[in-house]
């Protein structure tokens, strides 16, 4: 963890318009929750549905995608990464710092809003709110690691990430049960499932497998990103 790299990354992420982009979705979730509660539509079923489909399946992957790729990909594209790479800093420190910044951003813009939305909707009934908060937090860590790695590995990180989140996890998951099990979303849901008594929250993946995969994928992605950053080809002007 390098505080200077973290400072520069936070400023790049939160400066200018990108902060608004990060704020849009969580605000929408909160507004929706307030409206549902005000109109009396906040029974347990519907609330869990909102937290799962809006919070865990939409807000989380999109925010993690913006944060995870945003902390490193634009810097590589614009060549500013040179200023960090030309320092006697081990590459894993750079990757871990970027990852920590991404996780902090996901916490601020996805985990906390979900917690607030849950509290507005159902309070702590049946542990639904804490379950989803923790599910989204652990999922956010793995998503961030995957998207940071993607940002280092590919110049089309955002596109690939979107295809993964939308096509693989959401669309393909509803047709092919196999694909459904190989998704960060299902693993996070499995964690939430284990923490709540609400019967409508179910995952296709068992808890031990889900936790193992969350950890293994996060570590593998971080190693891959570090390895790649060691020999990052810099686009030549010629």
């Amino acid at each position, binding site marked *: 963890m*390098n*505080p*200077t*790299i973290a*400072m*520069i990354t936070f*400023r*790049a992420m939160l*400066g*200018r318009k990108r902060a608004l982009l990060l704020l849009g979705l969580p605000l929408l979730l909160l507004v929706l929750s307030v409206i549902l509660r005000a109109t009396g539509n906040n029974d347990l079923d519907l609330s869990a549905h909102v937290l799962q489909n809006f919070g865990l399946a939409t807000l989380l992957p999109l925010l993690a995608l913006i944060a995870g790729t945003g902390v490193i990909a634009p810097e590589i594209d*614009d*060549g*500013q990464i*040179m*200023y*960090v*790479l*030309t*320092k*006697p*800093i*081990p*590459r894993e420190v750079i990757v871990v710092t970027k990852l920590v910044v991404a996780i902090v951003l996901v916490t601020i813009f996805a985990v906390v809003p979900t917690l607030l939305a849950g509290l507005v909707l159902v309070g702590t009934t049946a542990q639904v709110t804490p379950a989803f908060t923790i599910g989204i937090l652990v999922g956010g860590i793995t998503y961030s690691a995957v998207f940071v790695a993607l940002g280092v590995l590919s110049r089309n990180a955002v596109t690939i990430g979107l295809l993964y989140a939308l096509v693989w996890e959401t669309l393909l998951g509803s047709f092919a049960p196999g694909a459904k099990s190989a998704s960060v979303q299902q693993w996070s849901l499995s964690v939430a499932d284990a923490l709540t008594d609400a019967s409508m929250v179910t995952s296709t993946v068992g808890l031990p497998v889900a936790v193992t995969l969350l950890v293994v994928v996060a570590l593998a992605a971080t190693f891959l990103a570090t390895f790649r950053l*060691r*020999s*990052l*080809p*810099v686009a*030549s*002007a*010629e």
Partner: protein
Amino acid sequence: MTERSESGGAGGRPPAENMSSELVLENVSRWYGNVVAVNGVSMKVGPGVTGLLGPNGAGKSTLIHMMGGFLAPSSGTVTLDGTPIWQNPGAYRKLGLVPERESAYDFLTGEQFILAMAKLHKLPDPAAAARRAIGLVEMDYAAGRPIGNYSKGMKQRIKMASALVHDPPVLLLDEPFNGMDPRQRLQLMDLIRRMAEEGRTILFSSHILEEVERLASHIEVIVAGRHAASGDFRKIRRLMTDRPHVFLVRSSDDRRLAAAVIADGSARSVQLTDKGLQVEAVDFQRFTWLLPRVSRDADVRLWEVSPSDESLESVFSYLVAR
């Protein structure tokens, strides 16, 4: 190859012992798929200013990227004082790099940027190092402004400060004068000379002979990825003027002039084209002196005499083919 002229160029006085560092390239090649960008280049870059001269696309940036540890040589080695640079972040304690691309962190002020760079180097007193580096490039007056609002010359100088903040013995600059106005150019040349006088090893790339000639005590010429020539600027100049020159000559009677030029023997070949006579002169000086006499004697009026291959590319291709 490492011989340096004592008086020529701007290398200045001998380097201080503690500063002197040497970059060594041994048979370095780099290819992208089937395209060879750099082909078997060997050179030693020592203290003083070395100019890396070559036309655009010759492979200068690829070479600098390899010297800066940003690109693995496909074959051969690049070492700094005996240690390979590739995948060795520790080498950056001794190395400062000024990339060609303009972008710095535009949202930071000059001062914040340089201070951040000093901290990334883990210098004992980053604030003092940042102040010193900003002072060196004379950017104190604008240090409080965001880099995004800087002019091109100011950006170049703040990038220079970022490369100097840890006082490295080796400095690599990729096309540092691109897009600078004449005043900024002079200021930067001055700064580079001062840095070299302190015993630093400085290498900069350029495609403009005059720039290199004014600043570098030693010149390495790269053409089409190959190491074409090496020496001080007098040697490079001589290589360039001693080669056969091709002139395009238009006159009142091209045929008669062709016969006269051939008979005189100062040209190797003469070709009649629809644009005029294409003459390949053996001796540049002799030919330019003789041509008016020959044409006068032959009673031919000269309308135009122009060198037809003065582009840097053609000059350099001659050096490569040599």
